């Protein structure tokens, strides 16, 4: 290699994703610094962050399609009958919000190097996630008990479709929590693992709040 040919846009490349970093970092090791992959050594961890960000874009569009179908279908008027919102959804929403809080805490402990505490709060987050899903199932039972079936009315159909779609994505989130917490990561560092799982989790949390409000106000 001819030593140090000046390549004018070199920094632009390295900075192409997020903040520019000098190429020196040997990268990706432990700690929180998941992006300092530079150009040598470890697997560039930033591709996972990029990957999950992109995937969230696709998921967002998927839900927006359902939401616009909801709005259009409701706008047709006539046969739209509201259902009673299962009470447990309030509790469920609180649980999911809390899980985002415990997740933030777990990551903070991880950054401080407190592995024990991290594991602990990571587990709490996972359990809260499971609890949320169980709560959603209960909500379905309550709907059925009240006579609101999938095909009873378009409003009910959308309730089931939106909660099911969100629940399935959250199930994926729980799998990711379990995998990062207790599985064996290969090319991904633990720091990156916790980072991308938390992005995804907060995303699903925010998405749920949105869907909850939509169902609550729009049903």
């Amino acid at each position, binding site marked *: *290699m*001819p030593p140090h*040919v000046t*390549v004018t*846009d*070199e920094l*632009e*490349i390295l900075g*192409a*994703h997020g903040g520019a970093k000098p190429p020196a970092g040997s990268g990706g090791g432990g700690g929180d610094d998941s992006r300092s*992959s530079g*150009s*040598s*050594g*470890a*697997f*560039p961890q*930033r*591709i996972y962050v*990029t*990957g999950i960000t*992109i*995937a969230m*874009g*696709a*998921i*967002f*569009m*998927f*839900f*927006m*399609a*359902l939401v616009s*179908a909801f709005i*259009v*279908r409701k706008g*047709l008027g*006539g*046969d739209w009958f509201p259902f009673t919102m299962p009470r447990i959804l309030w509790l469920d929403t609180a649980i999911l919000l809390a899980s985002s809080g415990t997740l933030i805490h777990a990551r903070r402990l991880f950054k401080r190097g407190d592995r024990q505490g991290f594991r602990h709060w990571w587990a709490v987050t996972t359990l809260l996630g499971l609890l949320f899903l169980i709560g959603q199932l209960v909500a379905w039972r309550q709907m059925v008990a009240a006579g609101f079936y*999938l*095909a009873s*009315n*378009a409003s009910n*159909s959308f309730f089931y*479709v939106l909660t099911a*779609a969100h629940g399935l994505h959250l199930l994926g989130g729980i799998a990711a929590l379990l995998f990062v917490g207790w599985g064996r990561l290969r*090319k991904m560092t633990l720091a990156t693992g916790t980072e991308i799982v938390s992005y995804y989790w907060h995303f699903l949390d925010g998405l749920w709040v949105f869907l909850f409000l939509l169902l609550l106000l729009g049903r």
Partner: protein
Amino acid sequence: MSAHASPIHHSEAPKGWIRHYIFSFDHKIIGTQYILLGLSAVTIGLILSLIFRTHLVWPDAHIWGFANGIVSPEDYLRLITMHGTLMVFFVLTTVPQSGFGNYFLPIQIGAPDMAFPTLNMLSFWTTLLALLVLLSSAFVPGGSAIGGWTAYAPLSAVGQIAGPGQGLGETLWVVSIALFCGGSLMSAINFLGTTIDLRTKGLSLMRMPLTVWGWFITACLALLAFGVLLAACILLLLDRLAQTSFFIPGNLDVSGVVLHHSGGSPLLWQHLFWFFGHPEVYIAILPAMGIISHVLSTFSRKPVFGYKAMVYSLTAIGFLSFAVWGHHMFISGMNPYSALAFSIITLVIGVPSAIKTFNWLGTLWGGKIHFTTAMLFAIGFVSLFVTGGLSGIFLAQPALDLYLHATYYVIGHFHLIMGVAAIFAMFAATYYWFPKMFGRMMNEGLGKLHFWITFIGVYCIFMPMHYLGYAGDARRYSSIESVNYMIPLHPVHFFITISAFVTAGAQLIFYFNFFWSMGHGKPAERNPWHATTLEWAVSTPVPHDNFAGDYPVIYRGPYEYSVPGAADDYIPQHLAPEQVAKAG
């Protein structure tokens, strides 16, 4: 070659035939698998089209495989549905992007592989599964779907009662498309992640080959569009299987039976479908545009005229394509003001499209043109793109479209611009990259014969369809004899069918050339076209990790042809300035 260390730990080449060729993580193998998948789909789709063209002009012809040897009206609809679905999804969406893109994107950006090889493998297998599900529908009771490639509700939603094929066949169609969406989404994530993060040193965005730009913007579109189609497919499946009423209006009377659904909206399906559908047509054409720019520049021995304008117009087309879906729905009874808005935005898309065309001509202008087969197909693409684009401008006028919608005029429009133009780009790509993929040259004589017959043939097939459309000939009618005013048009249909047979026959030349050259073609040099981009810097066959750990550094833009003062008429992107030989 200058080198820096690998950005990714490169893996060992897999041992064993199955790991290597079947369940491969290697982007080159996966790309080839996609291409072969597309080749199978296009072959089936082509044969189906020959069958329905035959039926149109010889309704009594006995055709093997149909009840009593006769193609019934339902069979006709089945044929066009499968033809359209195979071609749009499994050929045009798959081959230029997932096929050639998979193969050449990592190499052109100096990466060892795609960012997520496992995901890559998964997307291929999902797509293959989608294809198998679609094909399997031909063998179920009632046969495959008859709802068209757009599966308009409510007849796609009410089940068997809408006709044979609308039962299990249509269900399998929806499942297949839903799977296809999944595969395409995974693939889009991979393309975007790879382009964003795995470019080699020195490869700034504005130094990327236009092929890479094409694949990148296409992946953005796919990412945003396929999620919407997936959502629509799920709602449609629920309507079909769980008696919901998303798309089925209340008290719908189908063949005398009143259905017990409440007020769903068939138009909702059209909106969701075309919100996907219009970006989808650009998903088919943007990679083609990239490939064409690349090939035109190489064989004109000139830089792409207005590289930046090419990038910006590509991006603009991508953005705008999400705002024009309503032009497919002018006759749906939409508010005339919405129609006007959709019409204007559609015309606005014509501007970046025209910029691209202008720049392609600018690239050719004054070049030292080498008329290789790849170049001929590239020039053919430009011709088809202009012809097909012009008819689009007509269709974009709501007042004209009220008349032309659902006639052969639309068929002519989108076959020239999407069907055939994108296929021409695939041919250009095949003739251009074959030496890199298989280490041998394709036969140029056969290639040119293939080009000329195909080029003249497709014009003979699709230009008369515009005329048929003006005359009011409706698309999707299985018989041209049952309606009086269509009878005088019979000779035109006859001419089209004959042309279709000749053109399809010419493809045999291609198949022969393709498979024969793999084993018997002239051995290819590393860089037979004297091209500048990275795929021509690596040896042939391309090593397992593409660069065998020796990653190139990029010093210049992708199309440095005929640079004044240089000895050669091309300067590869990875050559350090002091290595470039001076003239004289």
